[in-house]
């Protein structure tokens, strides 16, 4: 057993876990943050993607003890109160989901992708970057549309902020 301390969605949390506990199980079972899903359990599907220290990782392929001391953001931590995060809003607007199982991972991957491409994204890049996220409804078309729309809104927002600052 080890003591794990994390900052999850801005809140300091800790718990004693078996060393073999995966980060995704710590989030779901100890913290009751069940928005992060376990799909394949073999590091391929991406339903479990969360951000650890600002980077998208597969939480089914990381031990909770490995992450101890880190800052974690899950799907529950994206929205600002009742206001959806721009990526969440774009998925809603573009119907970027069917059954919704892969959606938390898709949105966390998309948020990370947009952060790494602040000047905008094109369709080919989005599709290549979605390599590690599988939608078994095969609804990729609207997912890609949603990510492109969110990228546009967010790069516009950051540009107008920069303009105001200047």
């Amino acid at each position, binding site marked *: 057993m*080890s003591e794990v301390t994390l900052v999850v969605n801005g809140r300091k949390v800790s718990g004693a876990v*078996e*060393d*073999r506990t*995966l980060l995704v199980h710590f989030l779901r079972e100890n913290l009751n943050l069940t928005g992060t899903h376990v799909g394949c*359990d*073999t*590091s*391929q599907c*991406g339903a479990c*993607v969360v951000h650890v220290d600002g*980077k*998208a*990782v*597969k939480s089914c*392929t*990381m*031990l909770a*003890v*490995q992450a101890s001391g880190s800052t974690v953001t899950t799907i529950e931590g994206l929205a600002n109160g009742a206001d959806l995060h721009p990526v969440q809003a774009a998925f809603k607007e573009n119907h970027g989901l069917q059954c919704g199982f892969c959606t938390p991972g898709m949105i966390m*991957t998309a948020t*990370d*992708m947009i952060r790494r491409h602040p000047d905008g994204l094109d369709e080919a890049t989005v599709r290549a*970057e979605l*390599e*590690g*996220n599988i939608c078994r409804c095969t609804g990729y078309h609207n997912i890609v549309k949603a990510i492109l729309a969110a990228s546009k809104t967010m790069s516009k927002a950051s540009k107008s902020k920069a303009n105001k600052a200047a």
Partner: protein
Amino acid sequence: MYSVNYHRATSVADAVKKIKSGDAKFLAGGMTLIPAMKTRLAAPSDLVDLGHIAELKGIKVSGKTVTIGATTTHFDVANDEKLKKVCPALTHLASLIGDPAVRHRGTIGGSIANNDPAADYPSAMLALGATIVTNKRELAADKFFKGLFETALKDDEIVTAVTFTAPAKAGYAKFPNPASRYAMTGVFVTKGKDGVRAAVTGAGDDGVFRSKEIEAALTKKFEASALEGVSVPSKNLMGDIHASPEYRANLVVVMAKRAVAAANA
């Protein structure tokens, strides 16, 4: 996953001390080891985490000399601007590994210490004539890779960095398995002051190897056209549900052509 004891190392010396407990294994990014433990293909009693050792991280480029710390992630290799200038083939290779989330965690040291027969990095190390630096010694890549999942590393030996001189020309091309993105065949070619080297991953029955047929043809002329009509023997190549040895033999030549074209671009 079977029960395991986790130890976080604070330095290389600390990691060497901690590896002595039970049937311990070093853990870098964990992108191979953790899935292997989940399926019980690996069941170490203890894990010694190298991921928090500052001295193992980072990329240094000085002139043509490149040094990459062992726990530098694929993401950091793929996006290093200085490295991209002197050896774009290697940053390109890193950008092709797995997916973005895997690249955020997986490390170059972990990849070469694991020596998966279909991993990308071993081919680059061999073709670049890289030196593998450990806590005990420095080894030429030619002496480091020993076969399927086997290297020259001793139990308490840790890869700390890899270093190489960027060649005048280098290129990498791979035919990825459509599901796993591991190389079904990948070829890394270089042309440096010591001549031409061509290393093949994903195809050899015994892991990464240098192809003398490809090297001989490219030594005459370092162009894709030099590989027209060249054939590579299928003996000692892997055959599985994805591709027969003969199919892989053909892929070696096709990927080599693309790698040379990329190197000359």
